[in-house]
């Protein structure tokens, strides 16, 4: 399962394909996705639309470089597709789009949409009787959106025990540190007060992630994992540097620095 380095290489490759993107956000959540697609989600690249598959909604759609990289590594599509990131005729753009490429379950990008969408899918099992889990990954900055809390209340009210929220809690957003923009307070306490079973987890420890993500809801409540992460994790000079949140018109020198930075981390 420890494809961490290879996945980070794929992330940089994707970023290089478009010479732009939200690379640090991707490096923040790539270990979470790695664990989910390696040992938690019931998904099969040979049957990507199976009605009983688990669904993963990347509500923080700007982290899509990580999603594309994991999906490519897990054979949902060829790795060469990553080189077309954001190009005119590409199947993969700067935010993920449902049905544009196998494995992407929702079109996201405008923050605050994915949890409601995922809650609707999770609720559908109550009508259909099918059994699957829905995972929604949100950013910590994304919790500024009021719609997140509307959906949290609704998911809790309906006791959607097959819904899992993962907060990629890197404590950074576009303008800087999340708590400097708006103090988010104690996230675990907050989600618990909204009626979620809540667990705090190291978002880069694959073993711990795997153990925690294997939990089933014993309380009948939806589960929220607060994954403590580092934005840009794996490339030292990117880590927690708000200037790198989104980059466009990237230079060859910067790409070289990223590749070297990654090698150093290895």
């Amino acid at each position: 399962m420890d494809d961490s380095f290879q996945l980070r290489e794929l992330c940089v490759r994707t970023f290089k394909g478009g010479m732009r993107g939200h690379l640090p956000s991707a490096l923040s959540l790539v270990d979470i996705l790695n664990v989910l697609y390696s040992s938690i989600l019931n998904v099969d690249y040979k049957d990507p639309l199976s009605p009983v598959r688990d669904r993963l909604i990347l509500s923080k759609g700007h982290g899509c470089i990580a999603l594309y990289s994991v999906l490519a590594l897990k054979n949902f599509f060829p790795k060469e597709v990553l080189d077309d990131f954001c190009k005119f005729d590409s199947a993969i753009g700067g935010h993920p789009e449902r049905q544009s490429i196998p494995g992407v379950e929702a079109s996201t990008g405008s923050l605050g949409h994915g949890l409601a969408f995922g809650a609707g899918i999770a609720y559908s099992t109550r009508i259909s009787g099918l059994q699957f889990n829905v995972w929604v990954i949100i950013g910590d900055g994304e919790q500024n959106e009021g719609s997140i809390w509307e959906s949290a209340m609704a998911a809790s009210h309906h006791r959607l025990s097959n819904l899992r929220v993962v907060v990629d809690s890197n404590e950074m957003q576009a303008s800087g540190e999340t708590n400097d923009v708006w103090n988010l307070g104690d996230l675990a306490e907050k989600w618990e007060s909204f009626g979620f079973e809540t667990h705090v987890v190291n978002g880069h420890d694959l073993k711990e992630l795997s153990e925690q993500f294997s939990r089933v809801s014993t309380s009948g409540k939806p589960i929220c994992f607060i994954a403590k992460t580092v934005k840009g994790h794996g490339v030292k000079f990117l880590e927690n540097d708000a200037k790198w949140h989104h980059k466009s018109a990237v230079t060859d020198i910067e790409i070289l620095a990223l590749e070297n930075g990654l090698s150093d981390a290895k």
Partner: protein
Amino acid sequence: MRNRALKTVEEIISTHENSCFIGSDLGFGTLGGLREKYPNRVLMEGIAEQHIVGFAAGLSASGYFPIVHTIATFLTRRSFEQIAIDFSLQHLPGLFLGAGGGMVYAPLGPTHQAIDDFALMSSIPNLNVYAPADPIEIQELMTKSVKNLELAYFRVGRGGEPDITTEFHSTQNGNLKYVKSGNDFVLITTGTLLHEALNAYKSLSSMGINGTVIHLPKLNLVAALDLVNLISDSKLVLVIEEHIPIGGLYSHCIQSGLGALVDSKFIHLSLPLSYASNYGSQAAHRAKNQIDSEGIVNRINVELRNRGN
């Protein structure tokens, strides 16, 4: 009309096991019996329009056909992005019932007056915008829309409108309905304003002025060719709508090429591009803005006089 819309919801829920209904705190007892019968498919959610529309899209992505109902302004303004991104962009079907279309909620003030719903909704790709004129029409159009698995918005009128579309002829594709007794004028309208147009038509007829009334229940599919045939011999064409002047029926007519075809005969009567500063009734606002039957009659008389008739 709203009662018939809810009755139609009951029929749809009862006959289509893949359909579901989501209301947003619609009021005590609304669809209570249906909720008891189908507790998993008929939901009365909280006051959270962004959430309910996104949630409905999730159900739609799972193979269910959601009907979402709340006050038109909240649906079209607050959850505009959810309708656009979660439904339209992802090519998902669903039906939105906007209560209180136009000035129905005049006494409740501008926050509740859906004067821009046509413009907002018709700017969304893949979405059909309907403005039925009476109960029989909303039932027919909702049933058809669900059968065709459309993404659709319905402007729902106030209660008590009599069925009048039965008096109208329908073109083959059903996108246009009309009555015609002469070529002195043409009134093109949509939604419950058809009642005012028909009353004006009848009043003018009693004065010996005979024209045509055209109703377009599906806004963003102006049947240009059908319209041209009906209006080409007319002296005067008035487009009348209970909506701001941009983005509604008139804009659709112009975009479909009718403006160029009929040139200076085209006159537009609408609400102004502003929030209302009065309360009162829907009828009072129609009268103030001269889109009631009396205002229409007066305007046609003036225009015909100015044109030397």
